């Protein structure tokens, strides 16, 4: 059906709410890539078979990922009127036992992680109910306790392949508000007021970027979603797209309206097949419901989105390289200025934002910039999703308000290293980030504090390293990554990183000399200062920070040779 009014949206929401917490038992299997990797598809099949043989009216559905990677496969169940329960490490052989219990109004206790009485989707709240009072509450569970979900507000709760469930939790209401109650300038103003900064890592104020693009003289404008996530150990965007693709799409439509674009492009890496297929489903559904295409909500605003798949180059996450790639050229960065906001795709003003930035937009438009700006800290508003990985006990995707300390994330949420090992450092910001030593984990996670200690916010990869990690090897690993992924256009990045890796390997082989350490520093400074794009400008960070904080490890390796 074509949605034309708020009443249409409400009618769909009413209908779909029945699926989320209706009169039937609902079993939702977490089927994002992480879940599938641990066997969630088999779990889904086992439930399907079990339900068929029981001949009971139980709703089996798929959801995205709630972020608790360590506990996958995760299944959530709702018995009508009772709290939603999160079950962990569910195996196919558990299905029949769980089903039997569910029919009796119960759930095997040892599988339960926590219960959810009420879920705040921010645009809508879903009240599930009480029951299972002996089970700890979601908000008391250590992994979830310190989190605040804005971007991931729907992840792991709704079916990402069902637009109606998204509408049930308030979806597309922000779009309705923007198109019918706000001018494009008002939308930009609201985003500016929110203080939202680019979540791709550089932290440029989003509202300002929109405004520059909107004000650039042109008959055509484009918006692009950067979904070319490629940092080792980072998978925030993947989950955002796999678990809640409509949130991204709604954000982009609103952005298109504010900026004056008729076409949006999602540039997503081909290595994310599930994200691509869910986005495709979501785009087709939105078109069918009239939320993409001509005259959205009966207004004179028309907008559509298409997907462009990346071909496996890390550098295409850099915006000018991405534009070149979309135009069919090799993914090599172009000199800036001109900036994409003035002269981007096909020479037209273009606004590029990361997946996570777009996902924040529907919430900002609906709740207001003012509301958003109160989360986080003064110049670092809102939340940020991090993939907490490496040598950490509770591996997962966590969303915290900006300004949360690294300690809180690593220890309170992540519970430190396994096997009683001590945390040595945390690597933030992917290959362009830096290694922050344990002693500095008190710093708040915000764009400026991370920069001060030599790292960057980056897209949100957070790799915890224990005392048994060699920092020189870590630096060499990241340099080998950036050296291989350098596009090869400019000399400092291409030649400099190659030589940097040579020197690091020499040191690691025990053949380094004190002058190598000096040369590393000198080389780092030149690569940072003279590289053409962000890749080269930040690639020496792992080397610089490890020399700064773990110099003794370099010296130890060098001394052995002397």
């Amino acid at each position, binding site marked *: 059906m074509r949605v034309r009014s708020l009443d249409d949206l409400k009618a769909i929401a009413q209908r779909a709410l029945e699926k989320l917490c209706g009169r039937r038992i609902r079993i939702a299997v977490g089927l994002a890539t992480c879940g599938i990797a641990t066997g969630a598809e088999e779990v889904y099949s086992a439930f399907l078979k079990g339900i068929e043989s029981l001949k009971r009216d139980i709703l089996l559905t798929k959801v995205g990922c709630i972020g608790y990677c360590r506990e996958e496969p995760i299944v959530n169940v709702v018995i009508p009127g009772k709290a939603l329960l999160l079950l962990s490490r569910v195996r196919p052989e558990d299905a029949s036992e769980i089903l039997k219990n569910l029919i009796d109004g119960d759930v095997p206790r040892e599988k339960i992680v926590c219960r959810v009485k009420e879920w705040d989707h921010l645009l809508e709240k879903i009240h599930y109910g009480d029951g299972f009072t002996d089970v700890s509450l979601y908000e008391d569970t250590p992994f979830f306790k310190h989190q605040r979900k804005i971007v991931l507000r729907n992840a792991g709760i709704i079916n990402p392949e069902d637009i109606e469930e998204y509408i049930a939790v308030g979806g597309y209401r922000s779009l309705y508000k923007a198109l019918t109650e706000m001018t494009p300038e008002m939308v930009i103003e609201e985003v500016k007021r929110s203080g939202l900064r680019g979540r791709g890592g550089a932290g440029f104020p989003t509202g300002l970027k929109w405004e520059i693009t909107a004000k650039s003289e042109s008959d055509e404008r484009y918006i692009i979603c950067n979904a070319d996530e490629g940092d080792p150990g980072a998978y925030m965007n993947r989950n955002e797209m796999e678990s809640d693709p409509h949130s991204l799409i709604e954000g982009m439509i609103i952005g298109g309206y504010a900026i004056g674009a008729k076409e949006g492009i999602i540039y997503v890496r081909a290595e994310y097949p599930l994200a691509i297929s869910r986005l495709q489903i979501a785009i087709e559904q939105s078109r069918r419901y009239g939320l993409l295409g001509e005259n959205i909500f009966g207004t004179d605003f028309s907008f559509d989105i298409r997907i462009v798949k990346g071909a496996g180059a890390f550098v295409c996450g850099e915006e000018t390289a991405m534009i070149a790639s979309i135009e069919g050229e090799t993914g090599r960065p172009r000199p800036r200025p001109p900036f994409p906001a003035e002269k981007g795709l096909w020479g037209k003003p273009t606004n590029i934002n990361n997946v996570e930035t777009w996902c924040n937009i529907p919430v900002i438009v609906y709740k207001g910039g003012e509301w958003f700006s109160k989360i986080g800290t003064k110049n670092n508003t809102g939340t940020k999703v991090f993939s907490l990985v490496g040598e950490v006990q509770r591996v997962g995707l966590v969303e915290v308000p900006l300004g949360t300390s690294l300690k809180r994330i690593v220890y309170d949420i992540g519970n430190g290293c396994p096997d009683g090992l001590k945390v040595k450092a945390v690597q933030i910001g992917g290959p362009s980030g830096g290694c922050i030593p344990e002693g500095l984990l008190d710093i708040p996670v915000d764009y400026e504090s991370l920069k001060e200690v030599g790292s960057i916010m980056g897209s949100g990869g957070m790799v915890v390293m224990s005392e048994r990690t060699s920092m020189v090897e870590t630096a060499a690993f990241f340099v080998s990554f950036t050296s291989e*992924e*350098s596009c090869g256009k400019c000399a400092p990045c291409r*030649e*400099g990183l190659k*030589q940097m890796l040579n020197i690091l390997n020499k040191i690691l082989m025990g053949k380094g000399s004190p002058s190598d350490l000096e040369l590393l520093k000198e080389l780092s400074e030149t690569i940072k*200062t*003279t590289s053409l794009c962000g890749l080269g400008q930040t690639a020496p960070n792992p080397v610089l920070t490890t020399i700064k904080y773990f110099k003794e490890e370099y010296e130890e390796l060098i001394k052995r040779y002397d």
Partner: protein
Amino acid sequence: MISLRIDGRLIKAEEGERVLQIAIREGIDIPHLCYHEAFEEPYGSCRLCIVELKEGGSSRITTSCTLMAREGMEIKTDTPEVIKHRKLLLELYLAQAPLSNNIKKLAERYGIKGTRFHKTLNLEDPLGGKCILCGLCIRACREIIKASAIGYIGRGEATRINTPFLEENPDCIGCGSCANICPTEAISFEDRDKRRIMRSWSNTQVNLKICKLCGHPFTPEPLWLKVKEKSTYTPSEEIEEVCPNCRIKIVSKRLVKPYSL
């Protein structure tokens, strides 16, 4: 018109003009390898033309080929910081192109005799040891000649320049613009019998046009055809398929022999 300062000199320029262009015009020496006046857009790959830009109280280092002139800009082309980075870049180039005399000469101008970096010499690459991947040959072939016979292969440190799949490329017209524009003299070709052999480009062979008078080959045939097609000037049939030497003879004969006779 706007005015800016380069190394203290007040210079008038058009707004948006690139600083390197202005410097070249004004006789201010900024080293560069990937810039060439034939192209409208800068490419920004060699990074040697870095300068220090002072504007509105802050200063930063940036490439002058990409920098657009604005009123009140202050540019310094040889601060210690700029020189430091330029020298290190030259050391990197010395390691990448140890066989290039032009790179050696440029480095010597900055007092650099050797490099602290590991020298690489890829013997499989016909350009190895000389090419610095500045991209001028590719741009000339594509943007000016419009043949697109060569391009980058691979990425990162494995980048090289050649024909697609390292096969002979019939798109090459043998014009030699690539070799002509190369700042490190890395590209070579030779004329053998009635063929031009592009040694650097997978030994692509191009037929040479034979002078109908003396029988000597004088220019690549596809280049001759291209010029004929593009040119607005139509030479007389008498001299059309004739080599420059024979043309001179014909024309000079004409000049000494009055038409009336």
